[in-house]
């Protein structure tokens, strides 16, 4: 198995290719890695909250009432985000960015000041794939874009004929191939230790927790409950298995905020979850 890792999306993205590759095919293997990392880099470029040129920053700068053209990838992520938001009764809310700016977890954007208003849907998509910004808002796709980047990287590997691989963006991972690929879940109250080991086969697994964001159980969290804007503090971790990593990533926030590993939104997206 060949593994490579690069820093993207604020974390380390690891790609492991398990196909048996002839030594003479080093260039072919390199092209597989390059193409998969390029897909991740594109998501980073389009959806970064920090980059003023990203689609996300363009949406955040736009005045209410504006309609914006965005890249097809951004459109797909927004569509999924709105869908998970609806299925979760507003728990998942990409418009929580002002809360994360207030807590210092995101930088102040170069855009007119905005407050997060819970349960207000200020953004929709029109029939030709554009974004309609109906209310003043700042969005952050940090709770879903990593998962989408993993999905795109997996698609890139498949296009190159790779049959067995894993892409892991800081804990949001997806596996292709008949070979089971063990994933280890950290113990949330002792993240240097493994709580359990799972076999992931042709599926995605995403885990969310507070232990790496410099939080203890009494402090805040970058996981925000969209219904009230409150951080989901605590020394738990949530893992979601789903058909796509984008959905697994987004649904961890629904389970974290509801404390319900059997939340109805999971079944709607063919996902399952557990809390440690």
């Amino acid at each position, binding site marked *: 198995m060949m593994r490579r890792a690069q*820093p993207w999306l*604020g974390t380390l993205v690891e790609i492991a290719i398990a196909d048996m590759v002839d030594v003479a095919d080093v260039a072919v293997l390199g092209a597989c890695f390059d193409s998969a990392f390029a897909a991740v880099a594109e998501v980073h470029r389009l959806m970064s909250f920090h980059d003023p040129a990203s689609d996300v920053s363009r949406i955040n700068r736009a005045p209410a009432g504006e309609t914006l053209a965005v890249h097809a990838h951004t459109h797909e992520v927004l569509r999924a985000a709105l869908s998970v938001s609806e299925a979760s009764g507003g728990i998942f809310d990409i418009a929580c960015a002002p809360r994360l700016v207030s807590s210092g977890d995101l930088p102040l954007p170069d855009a007119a000041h905005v407050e997060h208003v819970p349960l207000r849907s200020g953004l929709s998509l029109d029939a030709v794939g554009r974004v309609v910004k109906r209310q003043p808002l700042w969005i952050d796709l940090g709770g879903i874009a990593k998962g989408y980047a993993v999905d795109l990287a997996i698609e890139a590997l498949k296009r190159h004929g790779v049959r067995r691989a894993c892409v892991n963006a800081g804990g949001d991972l997806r596996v292709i191939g008949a070979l089971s690929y063990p994933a280890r879940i950290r113990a949330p109250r002792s993240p*240097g230790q493994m709580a359990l080991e799972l076999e992931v086969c042709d599926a995605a697994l995403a885990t969310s927790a507070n232990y790496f964001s410099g939080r203890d159980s009494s402090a805040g969290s970058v996981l925000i409950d969209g219904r009230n804007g409150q951080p989901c503090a605590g020394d738990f*971790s949530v893992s979601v298995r789903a058909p796509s990593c984008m959905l697994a990533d987004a649904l961890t926030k629904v389970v974290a905020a509801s404390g319900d590993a059997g939340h109805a939104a999971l079944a709607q997206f063919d996902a399952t979850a557990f809390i440690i």
Partner: protein
Amino acid sequence: MKPLHLATLAATASACGSAFATQYLTVEQAQRVMFPEATRFAYSYLQLSPEQMRGVEKLSGLPARSVNWRVFAAYRGDTLLGHMVLDDVIGKFELISYAVGVNPDASIRQVEILVYRESHGFEIKSPAWRRQFVGKTAQSGLAVGDGIANISGATLSCTHVTDGVRRIAAVAQVMLKK
């Protein structure tokens, strides 16, 4: 943060088995990944003067941290293709060795992680301790298994690496730009 040479640490870690470490690329593999067209690599140990240190701090907005930098110049024949700069960073939970490919105009070409290591070790608990979670996995339709692993967990911030890359971009501006 202080510089460390992690490749040796990682080799030790994989030998003892309990700590979690991954070597993605050796220095030689990283050279070939970043500059596949190169015919030779020349190693140099760059030393920044106090004035150059101030230049790096001004450009990057970060403490220059180190006077010395490990650099490979990549050549095809006599033509300089660029440089590969090696660095190590230590976070709260992790030790990371990485390489930055730099073009002759000092722009960043590529970043590759060489070695990732959990700073406290990533322990595999005893089967008895793990059994408390088995019920949860059964409920969620997930099977417990063994073998080589990927770690799923809260997102590890790579701020140290991105700061490091920014610092190396400044070092390249000050010392490597042609």
